[in-house]
């Protein structure tokens, strides 16, 4: 420990962490100490093996006391990780958190860091950063703070399984929850899955208790057919504007009897629940277990809205629930925290022209297959080829469509291997046992609990695995069969297959509207367009905006168990802040809003 008093005004201490060998192994620590000692108003300089350790923190506290330090700089690691540690350490001995700063020099020295540079550049960079930070700290004034009351309510955006879980957790803790869902029903993508891995449970059966409870929970205000259009304010006191589209059906009067649907003369392709493989009417309830089970009119296809005549639904409705004059509603909410659970969309495979999706009707996606396999789906669980309604005798599933692909998305979508295995099992065991099922893959990734066993089981029941990705799919014009060539690298053989049906395991991509919502919330997105967490390992559900949390596939591709875990984590983070009742914030932030 060394001291150097030169023109002391603010009394700055610079602490350089060795981080074991993580920093000391990549930069000349004595040179950094010498350099720091010479900086204006620096009166104390020391290095330490681990500044974050109990011993390291005591060194800092002793120096503050013995050398009358007023400001402290720790040159160590990412402030997202440890700034709070050192602010608390300083606070214990009377230093305002604004006068404790942590700067990251480890990114230039640590093996494996993407920013690692050689020792000379690490020294130059670290010197520059320390010099700049000393200057900033020398001139910095205390950040004025004010205490604000916290509104004990939460906005949850997205009514999929993650949003439902977060809503129920918080509502059960006693907070008022406003759950906003863009579609007319809650349940999200899980409602379309038919079955879920690795238990092969019926998806709607395990989802329904959550949707049903959400619908009746006294602390949950369910706003379907609604979108967030404006967000202002700060943690503790966000002002939110929600725009609710009209259903043209009075929710209070509609009993969900379905008579209007039965009599409606207009049939249209159902792109939502049946993924384009079935039909619905212009007035519809998305599916039998929909919550709320209330009809909604699709104005794009309703005869009355398009041509000015019909109104059969209005005439037939036994409770006079139809209301063609319903207007969009603007709802203003005050909430203390916001949870984003906007989920994902399935990648549009028409972009991968080599697989012929959109051109060849017997090329479908895994979500479409789920609808065909579902006993409540458009074919009532019969697996039939879209081109001719015949049962397929051979099927190829192509993995990583739009994932792990330099020309589409570089990331792994993490769930596609498992849902392909699931569908292969369902086909072989429940639907068409004699049909040949091939899975054409790059790698099979089954890292969850019970997943590897699930994979083994899929192999044991006779599903064929081809280690390779086909370059192209061609249709036989007459039979509508599909021909593909694929090199199986396990047996070093070029296989030519003619199959009845091809299923594309498409990437998981950010849901429509993610960018717009991120702008409204001022939350950062990652390089793939998903909501970005503060730290990918240690703060996975917090965002750059305090009081706004993320969970489920809105943060990145993930399966249901992981979505549930994150939803609970996000609810817990919101609870931690809200339960305080009041909160200290920078004055400017409060004044602005």
């Amino acid at each position, binding site marked *: 420990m060394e001291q150097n008093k030169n023109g002391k*005004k603010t009394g700055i201490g610079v602490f350089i962490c060795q981080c074991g060998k993580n920093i000391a192994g990549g930069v000349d620590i004595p040179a950094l100490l010498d350099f720091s000692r010479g900086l204006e108003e620096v009166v104390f300089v020391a290095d330490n093996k681990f500044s974050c350790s109990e011993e390291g923190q005591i060194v800092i506290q002793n120096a503050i006391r013995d050398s009358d330090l007023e400001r402290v700089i720790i040159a160590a690691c990412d*402030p*997202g990780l440890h*700034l709070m540690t050192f602010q608390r350490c300083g606070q214990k001995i009377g230093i305002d958190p*604004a006068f404790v700063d942590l700067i990251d020099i480890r990114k230039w020295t640590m093996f494996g860091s993407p920013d690692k540079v050689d020792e000379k550049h690490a020294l130059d960079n670290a010197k520059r950063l320390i010099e*700049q930070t000393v*200057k*900033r700290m*020398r*001139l*910095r*004034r*205390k*950040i*004025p703070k004010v205490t604000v009351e916290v509104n004990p309510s939460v906005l949850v955006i997205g009514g999929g399984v993650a949003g439902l879980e977060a809503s129920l957790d918080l509502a059960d803790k006693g907070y008022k929850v406003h759950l906003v869902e863009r579609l007319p029903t809650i349940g999200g993508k899980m409602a379309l899955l038919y079955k879920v891995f690795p238990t092969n449970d019926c998806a709607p059966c395990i989802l329904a208790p959550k949707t049903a409870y959400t619908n009746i929970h006294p602390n949950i205000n369910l706003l379907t057919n609604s979108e967030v259009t404006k967000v202002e304010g*700060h943690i503790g006191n966000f002002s939110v504007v929600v725009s609710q589209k009209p259903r043209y059906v009075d929710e209070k009067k509609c009993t969900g009897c379905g008579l209007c649907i039965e009599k409606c003369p207009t049939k249209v392709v159902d792109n939502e629940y049946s993924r384009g493989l079935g039909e619905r009417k212009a007035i519809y309830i998305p599916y039998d277990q929909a919550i709320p089970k209330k009809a909604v009119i699709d104005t794009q296809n309703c005869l009355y809205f398009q041509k000015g005549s019909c109104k059969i639904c209005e005439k037939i409705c036994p409770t006079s629930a139809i209301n063609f004059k319903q207007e969009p509603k603007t709802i203003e909410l005050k909430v203390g925290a916001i949870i984003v659970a906007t989920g994902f969309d399935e990648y549009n495979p028409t972009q991968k022209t080599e697989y012929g999706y959109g051109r060849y009707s017997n090329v479908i996606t895994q979500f479409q297959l789920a609808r065909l396999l579902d006993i409540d789906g458009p074919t009532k669980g019969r697996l039939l080829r879209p081109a001719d309604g015949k049962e397929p005798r051979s099927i190829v599933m192509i993995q990583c469509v739009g994932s792990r692909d330099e020309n589409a998305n570089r990331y792994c979508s993490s769930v596609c291997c498992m849902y392909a295995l699931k569908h292969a099992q369902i086909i072989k065991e429940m639907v068409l046992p004699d049909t040949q099922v091939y899975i054409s893959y790059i790698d099979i990734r089954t890292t969850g609990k019970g997943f590897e066993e699930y994979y083994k089981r899929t192999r044991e029941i006779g599903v064929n695995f081809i280690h390779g990705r086909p370059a192209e799919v061609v249709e036989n014009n007459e039979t509508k069969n599909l021909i593909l060539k694929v090199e199986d690298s396990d047996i070093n053989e070029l296989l030519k297959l003619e199959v009845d049906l091809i299923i594309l395991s498409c990437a998981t991509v950010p849901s429509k509207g993610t960018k717009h919502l991120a702008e409204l919330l*001022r939350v*950062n997105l990652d390089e793939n367009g998903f909501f*970005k967490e*503060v730290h990918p390992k240690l703060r996975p559900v917090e965002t*750059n*905006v*305090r009081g706004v949390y993320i969970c489920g596939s809105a943060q990145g591709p993930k399966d249901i168990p992981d979505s549930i875990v994150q939803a609970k984590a996000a609810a817990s983070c919101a609870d931690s802040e809200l339960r305080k009742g009041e909160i200290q*914030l*920078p004055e*400017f*932030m*409060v004044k*602005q*809003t």
Partner: protein
Amino acid sequence: MQEVYVEDFMSPGCVGCPVVKEMLKGLSEELSGEITVEEVDITVDTTRAAQYGVMSVPAIAVNGVLKFMGVPKKEELKKALMEELERDE
């Protein structure tokens, strides 16, 4: 000589940020005194932005106090910098 440390909070793709950058560059040359400008990318340094309560960019902190969110008028920014430069400690 009086000094000012300006933290210019910005992010890639922000429309107003280059305007603020230019404004600060111009004022650094125009005003006497030492003005240090640090660009802080809020998508990289989220902790610093959160500490100040920066919720949108551009935003400007002068000597550790957040003064502006959005693009300020040049005169307002000049006034804020001069107040700090002329301040008696």
